[in-house]
């Protein structure tokens, strides 16, 4: 149970990992969250989420080359797995179906 479940924050992080196509790592996701989703979170929260996603099998990680600004430490680069993509698509299709069934949402909610 829970393996397929994707939390709201997890979904967001997973989307960014997918968007950043192979160059995603802790800081890049954190900055993207701040700039594009207006979510200021601590780096440790991003790390924890990425670890969780990896455990669930939605992302995989590889080590980058060592860089100087990190004191010779390598980055852990994340990329989305097939399973992750399936999960995203599934969530989206559920949402699309539901959105299609909502009557007059634009006038009722959108511009309140």
């Amino acid at each position, binding site marked *: 149970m829970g393996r397929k479940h994707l939390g709201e924050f997890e979904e967001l992080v997973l989307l960014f990992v997918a968007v950043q196509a192979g160059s995603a790592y802790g800081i890049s996701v954190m900055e993207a969250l701040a700039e594009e989703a207006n979510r200021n979170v601590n*780096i440790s929260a991003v790390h924890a989420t990425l*670890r969780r996603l990896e455990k669930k099998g939605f992302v995989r990680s590889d080590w980058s080359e060592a860089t100087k600004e990190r004191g010779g430490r390598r980055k*852990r680069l994340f990329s989305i797995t097939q399973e992750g993509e399936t999960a995203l698509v599934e969530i989206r299709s559920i949402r699309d179906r539901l959105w299609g069934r909502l009557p007059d949402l634009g006038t009722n909610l959108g511009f309140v």
Partner: protein
Amino acid sequence: MSRPPTGPPPWADRFLEWFCHPDLLEEIQGDIHELFTIREAEKGTTAARRYFAWDVIRSFRLSTVKNFDLLISPDMLKMNARIAFRQMLKQKVFTFIKIGGFALGMAACLLISLYIKDELAYDQHYAEGDRLYRMVSYNSIFPEAWAGHVFFPAPMAQALLEDYPEIESAARITPGGLFGGGSNTLRRADQQENFFEEGFLLVDHELLDVLEIPIIQGAPAEALASPLSIVISAKKAAQYFPEEDPIGKSLIINDELDKPYVISGVMRDMPIQSHLAPIDFLVTLTEVEFWQGEQQYWRANNYHTYVRLQEGTDVADLEQKLLGLVDKYYLPSTIAEGVNDPEKEVGEMTFGLQPVGDIYLKSAGIMDLLPHGDIRFVRLLGAIVIFILLLAVINFVNLSTAKSANRAREVGMRKVVGSQRGQLVQQFLTESTLISILALSFAILLAGGFLPYFNQLTDKNLVMPWLAWWFLPGALLGGLLLGIIAGFYPALFLSTFKPIDVLRGHLSRGAKSSSVRNGLVVFQFATSVVLIAGTFVIYQQMNYILNKELGFDKDQVVIIQGANTLGDQVATFKEELQRMPDVQSVSIGDYLPIDGTQRNSNRFGVDNGEQVIGQFWLVDHDYVSTLGMEVIQGRDFSRAMSTDSTGMIINEAMARELGYDNPIGHRLNNGRDWEIIGVVKDFHYMSLKEEILPVCLVLEESPYMISVKAKAGQMDNLLGQLQSTWDRFIPHQSFQYTFLDKEFAGMYKDVFRTRDVFISFAILAIIIACLGLFALSAFLAEQRHKEISTRKVLGASTSGIIGLLTKDYLLLVLIALLIGLPLSWYLMDQWLADFTFSIDLQWTVFAAAGAVAIIIALGTISFQTIKAARLNPADFLRN
């Protein structure tokens, strides 16, 4: 000057490296360092360093922490627990004593915690509790017992409201027997049957608001607003008006048909934890005037006054401003009466505001005639329970370290095969917490089992809060904590053994810690000595109080209550009683030398121009004889003397106050003129804790109570006769009676309670201390088996060996006496200072306490020393 730091804070980096799982470290550390570089460029070094530290701390999560050997590892814990159990089984007696001592201590702690929690909960239920105060008046011209009191003139509440904007609301009550509070007979207006009810209180309508008394039936705004209205509790409403709406119904109090009280509201049953409880009937003070002009009179003090202050009021400041009341009201009213020296008569009056939440426990020095708890008693109990726990912990420490020799090999071996000290500490702590948790479960059962007895002892209705959310977790936490505290020293001590010494057999068995252990034994016995001496002194003092000459005879007197309903028949009733063969004498009067009967305070002008303050008691001709008081000057009231209607009998205290050698014939005036015709020996009518204050007796009606003195041994017969006579006179009211000696003992309930609780827990503490000493002596004797065997072989006698083994303990006990006896002397001196009439401390008592302590100690160890001295040397010297 040091240069400003550059780079990330090294401590944070080190911390990260220390806790972080190696698989994650590179990623996390890398990211945080990279962030530092970015932020340093954007916001400066200082801010970046702060962020860095914060990031490290935020990264400290369960999922990032590496596997520490010391941190919970289930296998390790299981192994430790298994070893602990084996150890416990191996030494059953010691385990029993460790667990038993702990369990006793914890059970005591549980019970006492419940008690303290209950006491502290009094009057804590008000939503605006921090703004509720009771007015207190201080005046040094009054006798000590009355120097602080809560009785105020009728117009005080109104004056406070008008003159002090800080006071948002004010209300008055008159509790006690005065003017119809306390106990009365009650019946429905439409029924004949009278019931004897207690818990009446005369109150202002505003009191419902000030003390937040919820009205659950009827309109709160109407409740007690109109004259002759009454509010009753939900409990009483159900009793008198089952399945009826009580609102608007009438009640008759004391058969006064011309004054039916209309029920204007039903209040929720008052919490027991209220200083006014138990109260079931609130009678309105609206338009009540006890005599003509009383409501505007500033020179009679009959009302307690409660106030609710505006938010943010400075209480100390307001207390200062209240001094204005003296000049504005008290002095003018005194001058208006034409008193000689009004300023002197008003005295040095000051006012205080006592938080309502403090009334129950912290009213020492404030006379209010209400039942109280005592914060000192609560503290005493708290102290006792801490000592009991300490004793139990000490047992544990002593036994564990004494037993260390048995564990030394184990520790040595473990170290040799690679155990670290931390692991050993962990192991011993597991053992101690396990024992502690086991003891806790016994303690909870014990406490549950003993709760009824404890309730009896403390006069409470406590229940085990099994289901309260805090109870089991709290107890568990306490148990764990105690286990860790108790195991801490033994764990450190045991884990320091050097393998090389141990395995070579160099460690002298358990002797290393003997100074600490001896210190702890001394502490235990000093505590016991204090408790023993305390028990003796408390017992002596209580006996002294109970057998003290009271100045009246409390035995063989039955008091009939609610007699006022006899009305005009009272004289016939009295005559009929007097004719009974078993009756010695009968007196009608509400002023008796026991709590809960009428009291007052009057100011008398003396014929020499002075003023005195005294009680003014209304009695009849047979009062002095019925209560067995002794006339020492002049004479008793006599029916033959018609002038006795203006005659007065005073007590010795009043005679002293007046200062006449022979007060007979002198006159006192309290609005009426009285001539002194006799002096009775001082009799105790307040608690014996307090001094006897002046009393005057005059012939006047006070018809609520009738005292009947039986002839010796005839009480049982008499009760039946009284009952049938009563039923003949008043068939509609049940015969309500009590005994003078019983009520008298009731006055000392708190004193007895202190005694019984103290003695019970003192004995418990001593038992725990003895348990420890018993086990310790068993072990130390066991250690010396070889030595003793050798001595015996070489010709030592049994008694010689007993002496040898006893000597060590004797020294410890003597040191304990040296510390404990002076301490207990000091403490008991403090305690006795609280009583006006107290015994003198005698050294013999302390000598006896010391002797008892020595006997207990030596008795405890004698089991073991004698056993050791009689051993067969062959058994121990063979190998």
